[in-house]
C-alpha cells in the first residue's frame, strides 16, 4: 500500500458555527471545497465515504445529495477516528481498481443544530450499555478522566502537565486564522476553569463546534494531475482492544502502540522521521498517551515531555499545528481534520503555523473512549 495512493484535494466548511446548515449540507460544502482544490467536479467522483453519528445509511445520503452513483461506498462508523480509518478501505478499493476517485467527507452541526440532547437520549435508549450507563458517567469526559486519573496515579503526571497540552494547542490556534478559540490561555486558567469530571476541567476538553471537512483520494499515478502538490499515504493501520472504558485492559496504554507500530512498518519510518504530528486531542490526556504510545517518549513520561513548550510553536516537536480539537475545531468527530492539517503542512500552505520543510506527517485518529486507534503516515513526493 505504501505510496500507492495520494490525497489530491482537501476542503473545510462551516468550521466554528454554521447556523441554519444541516449536517449533510456542511459535508457537501466541504466536498465542494475539496473538489475545487483538486480541480475536479462531483461528476469525477466514483467512490463516496462518510461516517455520521446521526444519519442512517450516511453513504447513501451523501451520494444522493451530490448526485453521484458510486462504484464504491463505505460508511464504517468507528467514532472520531473514522475518517483516518477510511483511508484503509479507500486505498484498498483504489488499488483493486474498483474506482478511481474517492471522496471522504464529514459534516456536523452539533453546536448550533437543534436536538442534540434529544438525540443523546434516543441513542441511549437504543444502545443502553447496561454495565456503564446506570452509573451515569458523563461521557465521553468521564471515561477520559478515569484514564487521566490512572496515569497521574501510576506515573506522577500532574494537572499542570495536562494543562500544558491545552496551552500548546491554543498557541498553535493563535497562528491559525481558521481556528475557533484564539484568545490567550495560560496553565493557571486551565487549572482554574470549571471542573467537568475530575481531573479534567472544561479546558482539558475539546471544543464543541460545527464544521465539516473532505478529502479526495486517488491512485498515485494520477497524483501529478492536480493543481496542488499531492500528499502520499505511506502507511496506515488500525487497532482496537475495547469499546467501553470499563473493558480497556490498561487505561494508561492504548492500541495506538499496535496501530503505530504497523503503520511505521508499512511506511518504513519511525518516530524520528516524523516532522509533525496531528494527534486526536479530544482531551489533554490523549496527547500524552499518544506521544508515549507512538514512540515519541517512554511510557509514563508524556507529562514531562510536553512541559516547557516542547509541542507548542517554537518547541522541538510540532503537535496539532492547527490548534487541534482543543482549540481549532471539534464538531463531534475530529478525524478528518487530522488528515487535512497533515496535507496542508506537507504542501507548505499552512501560513504562520507552517512547519518549515515538512516532509513526513503523522495523523493519529482516536475513536470512542480511547477505543479505536488509527495511525496514518503521509509524505511528500520526495519521501516515496
Amino acid at each position, binding site marked *: 500500500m505504501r505510496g500507492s495512493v495520494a490525497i489530491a484535494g482537501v476542503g473545510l466548511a462551516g468550521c466554528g458555527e454554521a447556523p441554519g446548515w444541516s449536517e449533510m449540507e456542511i459535508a457537501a460544502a466541504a466536498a465542494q471545497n475539496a473538489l475545487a482544490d483538486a480541480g475536479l467536479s462531483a461528476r469525477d467522483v466514483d467512490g463516496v465515504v462518510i461516517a455520521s453519528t446521526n444519519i442512517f445509511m450516511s453513504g447513501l445520503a451523501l451520494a444522493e445529495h451530490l448526485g453521484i452513483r458510486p462504484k464504491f461506498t463505505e460508511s464504517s462508523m468507528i467514532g472520531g477516528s473514522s475518517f483516518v480509518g477510511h483511508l484503509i478501505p479507500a486505498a484498498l478499493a483504489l488499488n483493486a481498481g474498483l474506482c478511481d476517485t474517492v471522496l471522504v467527507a464529514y459534516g456536523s452541526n452539533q453546536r448550533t443544530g437543534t436536538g442534540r440532547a434529544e438525540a443523546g437520549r434516543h441513542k441511549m435508549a437504543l444502545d443502553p450499555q447496561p454495565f456503564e450507563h446506570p*452509573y*451515569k*458517567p458523563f461521557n465521553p469526559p468521564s471515561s477520559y478522566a478515569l484514564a487521566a*486519573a490512572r496515569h497521574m496515579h501510576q506515573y506522577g503526571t500532574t494537572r499542570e502537565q495536562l494543562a500544558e497540552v491545552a496551552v500548546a494547542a491554543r498557541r498553535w490556534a493563535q497562528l491559525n486564522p481558521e481556528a475557533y478559540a484564539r484568545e490567550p490561555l495560560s496553565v493557571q486558567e486551565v487549572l482554574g476553569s470549571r471542573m467537568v469530571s475530575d481531573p479534567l476541567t472544561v479546558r482539558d476538553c475539546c471544543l464543541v463546534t460545527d464544521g465539516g471537512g473532505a478529502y479526495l483520494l486517488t491512485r498515485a499515478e494520477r497524483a501529478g494531475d492536480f493543481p496542488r502538490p499531492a500528499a502520499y499515504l505511506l502507511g496506515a493501520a488500525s487497532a482496537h482492544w475495547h469499546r467501553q472504558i470499563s473493558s480497556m485492559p490498561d487505561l494508561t496504554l492504548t492500541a495506538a502502540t499496535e496501530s503505530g507500530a504497523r503503520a511505521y512498518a508499512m511506511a518504513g519510518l519511525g518516530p524520528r522521521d516524523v516532522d509533525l504530528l496531528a494527534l486526536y486531542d479530544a482531551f489533554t490526556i490523549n496527547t500524552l498517551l499518544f506521544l508515549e504510545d507512538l514512540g515519541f517518549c517512554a511510557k509514563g513520561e508524556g507529562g514531562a515531555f510536553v512541559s516547557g513548550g516542547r509541542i507548542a510553536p517554537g518547541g522541538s516537536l510540532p503537535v496539532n499545528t492547527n490548534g487541534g480539537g482543543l482549540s481549532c475545531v471539534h464538531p463531534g468527530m475530529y478525524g478528518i481534520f487530522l488528515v487535512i492539517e497533515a496535507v496542508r503542512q506537507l504542501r507548505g500552505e499552512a501560513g504562520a503555523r507552517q512547519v518549515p520543510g515538512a516532509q513526513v506527517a503523522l495523523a493519529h485518529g482516536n475513536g470512542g473512549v480511547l477505543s479505536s486507534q488509527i495511525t496514518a503516515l503521509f509524505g511528500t513526493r520526495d519521501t516515496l
Partner: protein
Amino acid sequence: MSPPSGPEKQYFERLAAGRFELQKCAACARHVFYPRVLCPHCGGGQLDWVAASGRGTVYSTTVVRRKPADGGDYNVCLVDLAEGVRMMSRVSGIPPAEVRIGMAVKARIAEGLVEFTPA
C-alpha cells in the same frame, strides 16, 4: 439457544434476587465480566455462574460534577474484583472526592445495581 434468556438478562435477574454472580469459563477457568455468550479470554462456550466474592480495589475514579440543584457531585469508578475482572461502579458512603485509587472496597446490591463501600 437452550437457556431461557441471554446472559445479560440472567445477570440482572440474579442481582434482582439479591445475588451478585460472575461468569466463569469452564475451559480456561478465568472469570468473565460483563456477562457474555463466549469467553473473551479463550473463546470457550461454557460459562457458568459463580458467586462473586464482592472484594475489590479501586482501579480509577472520577467525580462527575453536577449542580447541587440536580443532585450534586457523584462518584464513578472502575473496580478490579478479586476474581480478576473489572467493572464500572461507584463507591457510596463517603464523599465522592475521597474515593482513592487503590482503596479496598466491598460490594453490595443497591436498587438492582452493584455498588461498593470502603472495605
